[in-house]
């Protein structure tokens, strides 16, 4: 590791930069130097913003020198490349936007920069955030820092790999069905999806608008809380952003779980995941109990239909959202004999296979004659899934379950689309219900055929708007167990 500075937490960096015992410039230089040597092996970034980072560092140092206190002063930030940052290429991991430059900045990114973050670069992702491994990116390969033969997870795999390999201290992700929580689990990170609407989606390239939510990656719960506090809150530019005061979280972290009832989901029994993984979760639940929580069994009887529900609703919304990529106003254009042929050729050349599959399935589910049988039925199933959680909250305050059914898998291991979709089994129900949920490191498992132990994630989920108790509980669990510190990245 070139410089111990890059391993510090966001909280430590901000404290020292605010105290002027460290400059944002030093942090930016150390991080960029590390990215320049390490990222050719990892592939976290599609674009590295050397100049932009140094400009912002100078700005942060000047603001601190002028007496301002910035909650994330000098903290290196990795931005998922489906979020706009003025003047930077924003590709969504797609050929159709390969050369598109954002004319404005996403609200969540703007707020992190205003809080003092240094933008190190734009990170790789599954094309238009559709995938669970980053393998669907049209623009690059990202490797898991804990085993380069394995995927980092997805869709926010570039941000996860960047934070895990110290190429950034905080990362932004977007989570539609698990795209923050699964890569966080795969890369030994905390990954947090807030309540739907808590973080503005303005400047996020839309995938499935009723599900998309931005949230942070960090190496500690405290850092994730600091990032959430900075990026959350109402934004008039996103009409679905929640117009109620943000409850800050970083100042309300806890060290025990006394008085908390944690639901263990009957339908999510882990015995079928193999003895080693089962033991990791059994121990995690015992640790929650040892911290003072009362474990109660809860039922989510409709959760098994989550995947089917999601894989109708999300593609339906995607087919509508991605209609805007037609070669007229921005991005790729492939000429044709008439305007229809231009649309069809542009989209054929610009979209990769997974995006095409989802557009087709979504278009089919919304088409005349199938709309009620597929799309409306899925929307009704969504109601039942949300009602399951409402019933569960009568007997518990939070739910604990796996974030993913396995540790990070090897490249090309999930060639059948449905086997990839199954990676989201435990994260999709929460997305459909709009609930805040996170993944926190909970242990290590050496997968069959693997040479190194790989991280696993415990998912904690809370009622709508209960971000504060959720992060507080995750912090207590993290501080007691410290699983994240037990292994170091392979490179």
């Amino acid at each position, binding site marked *: 590791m070139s410089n111990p500075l890059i391993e510090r937490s966001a909280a430590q960096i901000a404290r020292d930069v605010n105290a002027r015992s460290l400059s944002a410039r030093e942090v930016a230089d150390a991080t960029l130097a590390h990215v320049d040597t390490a990222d050719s092996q990892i592939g976290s970034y599609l674009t590295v913003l050397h100049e932009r980072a140094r400009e912002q560092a100078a700005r942060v140092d000047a603001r601190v020198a002028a007496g301002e206190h910035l909650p994330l002063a000098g903290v290196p930030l990795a931005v998922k490349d489906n979020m706009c940052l003025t003047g930077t290429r924003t590709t969504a991991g797609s050929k159709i936007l390969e050369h598109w430059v954002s004319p404005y900045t996403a609200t969540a990114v703007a707020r992190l920069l205003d809080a003092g973050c240094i933008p190190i670069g734009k990170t790789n992702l599954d094309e238009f955030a559709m995938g669970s491994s980053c393998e669907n990116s049209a623009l690059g390969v990202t490797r898991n820092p804990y085993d380069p033969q394995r995927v980092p997870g997805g869709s926010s795999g570039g941000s996860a790999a960047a934070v895990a390999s110290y190429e950034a201290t905080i990362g932004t992700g977007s989570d539609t069905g698990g795209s923050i929580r699964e890569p966080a689990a795969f890369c030994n990170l905390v990954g947090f999806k807030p309540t*739907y609407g808590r973080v503005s989606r303005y400047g996020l390239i839309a995938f499935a608008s009723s599900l998309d939510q931005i949230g942070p990656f960090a190496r500690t719960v405290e850092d994730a809380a600091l990032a959430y506090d900075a990026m959350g809150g109402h934004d008039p530019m996103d009409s679905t952003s929640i117009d109620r005061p943000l409850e800050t979280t970083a100042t309300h972290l806890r060290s025990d779980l006394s008085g908390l009832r944690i639901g263990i989901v009957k339908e999510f029994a882990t015995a079928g995941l193999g003895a080693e993984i089962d033991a990791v979760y059994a121990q995690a639940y015992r640790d929650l109990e040892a911290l003072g929580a009362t474990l109660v069994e809860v039922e989510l009887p409709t959760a098994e239909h989550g995947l089917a529900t999601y894989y109708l609703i999300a593609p339906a919304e995607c087919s509508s959202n991605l*209609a805007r990529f037609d070669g007229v106003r921005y991005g790729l*254009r492939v000429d044709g004999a*008439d305007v229809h042929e231009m649309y069809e050729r542009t989209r054929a050349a610009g979209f990769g296979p997974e995006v095409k*599959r989802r557009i087709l399935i979504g*278009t089919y589910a919304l088409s005349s004659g199938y709309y009620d049988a597929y799309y409306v039925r*899925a929307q009704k199933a*969504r109601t039942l899934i949300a009602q399951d959680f409402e019933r569960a909250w009568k007997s518990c305050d939070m739910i604990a379950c796996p974030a993913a059914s396995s540790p990070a898998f090897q490249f090309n291991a999930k060639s059948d689309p449905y086997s990839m979709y199954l990676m989201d089994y435990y994260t999709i129900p929460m997305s459909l219900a709009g609930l805040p949920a996170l993944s926190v490191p909970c242990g290590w498992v050496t997968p069959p055929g693997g040479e190194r132990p790989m991280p696993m994630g415990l998912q904690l989920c809370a009622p*709508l708007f209960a971000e504060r108790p959720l992060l507080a509980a995750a912090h207590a669990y993290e501080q007691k167990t410290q699983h994240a510190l037990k292994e170091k990245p392979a490179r």
Partner: protein
Amino acid sequence: MSSEKIDVRYVAKLARLALTDDEVERFGEQLDDLLGHVDSLAKLDVSAVPATAQVVESRNVERDDALTPCLDREVVLAQAPQRAGGFFRVPRIIAE
């Protein structure tokens, strides 16, 4: 729900997506497989269940009808695949 096969070419036309013959075959098989999985929803009794479009509180949002700053036309047109003066240029849509 239905067990009939998807007419991939028709759906692709609706989606304005040109597909090769190879893609038609491959996507056709994959979509049939995926629809086989989502058919499990047919088992749910949803006769008395309202549809959910979005879970969290939502209401119509209005703003004052006032001029506010917006993106500069040159900035937007600079990204256009083809432009003509202050416009996006596209193939002829209305026949001569």
